Each structure stands twice: as structure tokens, then as C-alpha cells.
């Protein structure tokens, strides 16, 4: 700070400007009503969005299931393992 006392002058000027500022005495009631309304609206929008995402996920899941081939087995995807027919045994002769 090159100018002597400049910080004091700055303090005085800022104090003088600040002391001239007045606020509405009813500011709390007005502001709190505003932020409560915004908060409720925000929660409502979030709830609607969550419900929409849930419903969309449900719809996509149901659509995917309805498109699936009923003959495709997704759980047992190995080639069908059928019990082999017993080999032809020549039963002629000794029982």
C-alpha cells in the first residue's frame, strides 16, 4: 500500500456504503415462503422423474421379455442333453 491511510479510507468508505443499506423488515416471511415453495416443487419434480425412470425401465423390461423366443432357454444354454437311447443290444441268446 503506497498511499498512507488508504486502507483506513477504504474501510470508512465501505462502512459508509454498507450503513446506507436497509432491508425489508418482512424479508424472512417472503424469502422463507419462496424457498419452501421451491423446495417442495423440487422434491415433486424429483419424485415424478424417479417414477418416470422406474416406469420406463419396467416397460423396457416387459417389452424385452415379450420379444424373447419362448423356445430359447436362457438359463440352461448348453446344448440340450438328452438321455441317450439304450444301445441296441442283441438280446438273442442267453438272457
Amino acid at each position, binding site marked *: 500500500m503506497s498511499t498512507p491511510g488508504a486502507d483506513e479510507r477504504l474501510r470508512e468508505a465501505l462502512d459508509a456504503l*454498507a450503513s446506507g443499506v436497509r432491508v425489508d423488515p418482512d424479508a424472512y416471511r417472503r424469502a422463507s415462503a419462496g*424457498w419452501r415453495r421451491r423446495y417442495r416443487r423440487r422434491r415433486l419434480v424429483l419424485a415424478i422423474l424417479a417414477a418416470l425412470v422406474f416406469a420406463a425401465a419396467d416397460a423396457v423390461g416387459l417389452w424385452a421379455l415379450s420379444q424373447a423366443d419362448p423356445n430359447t432357454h436362457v438359463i440352461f444354454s448348453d446344448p440340450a442333453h438328452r438321455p441317450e437311447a439304450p444301445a441296441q443290444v442283441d438280446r438273442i441268446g442267453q438272457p
Partner: protein
Amino acid sequence: MTETGTRPRGAAARTGTDSDREAAIAELFEIHHLPLVRLAVLLGADDAEDVVAEAFYQLYRRWPRLRSPEAAATYLRSVVVNLTRMRIRHLQVVRKHAARSGDEQGHVASGEESAVLREDQKALVDAVRALPARQREALVLRYWLDLRESEIADAMGISPGSVKVHVSRGMAALSRVLEERK
């Protein structure tokens, strides 16, 4: 029976938390509203009360995530500083557009300012307003709120070293203005 027992307890707890929050914020509003409006005015906000109302809304919304109730004042100050900076930046863009289209309106001093300030103080305040936003914030927080460098750094979201730089550059610029007026 357990479920029917827990539901009202949970609802009561939530209602209790909400009323605690309402009471705490009402108390904070009572204490900090006027100083924060003054801070916003000193930082150059043209709609200081709206800026402060927005800061209290942000506090209301994030109350459950607040580190401690004692941190609320610091948080509010920081939000006011940031919102004012954003608001001024927005107004600068709007004014630039208005200047291009030819319907520019000059800054009109409020009744309080012109009634309270002396000529030299008005010149100093104008010089502060002409500073870059960061320098102006650092000077107001330092010389009006008498905050320490670490507190200014928290409020501005910068390092204490940067605070020193902004304060010294801002004061150098103001000194030049004062020298020129002599």
C-alpha cells in the same frame, strides 16, 4: 406391530428434523441477513436481497449435508460471494449486448448511496467497483469484514496465497486512483 410402531416414529423424527432446520435457519436469517445483504451490495450486486435469499435457499436445501451448524455462516458468505460474481458477469454480458443494440442504460446509484457517501468516498467506492471481481471480493472481505486470509480463501474458494496477491493488487490499483485524485 413393529412396522406400525416404526412408521410414526420415523415421521415424527423427520418432522422434528424439519422443524429444527426451520428454527436454525430462522435464527441464522435473523443474525446474518442484513450483513449478507450489505456484503452483496459492497460486492456490486444490484439485486442484493435476491442474492441473499438464494443463498439461504441453498442452505435450506443442503442443511442435512452441512458439516456443522457453525459452518452455516461461512457457507452463506461463500454462496453470496459466488452468486454475486456470477450475477455481475451475467449483467456484463447483458450490458454488452445492450451496448451493441444501442439501448444501453448507465449505472444509476441508489438513493442510499448518494445520500450517505461523501465525494471522496464515492470515488473510492467507484474505484473498488471498477476492480476485477476477485480483487474487489478480496478487498471487501479483508477491509469490511476483517476476515483472515484463510477465511477469505474459504469464502472465495482460492488459496491463501492467491488472496494475498488479489489484496495487494487491488490496493495498488486503489492507491493509484487516490494518487490521481490528489
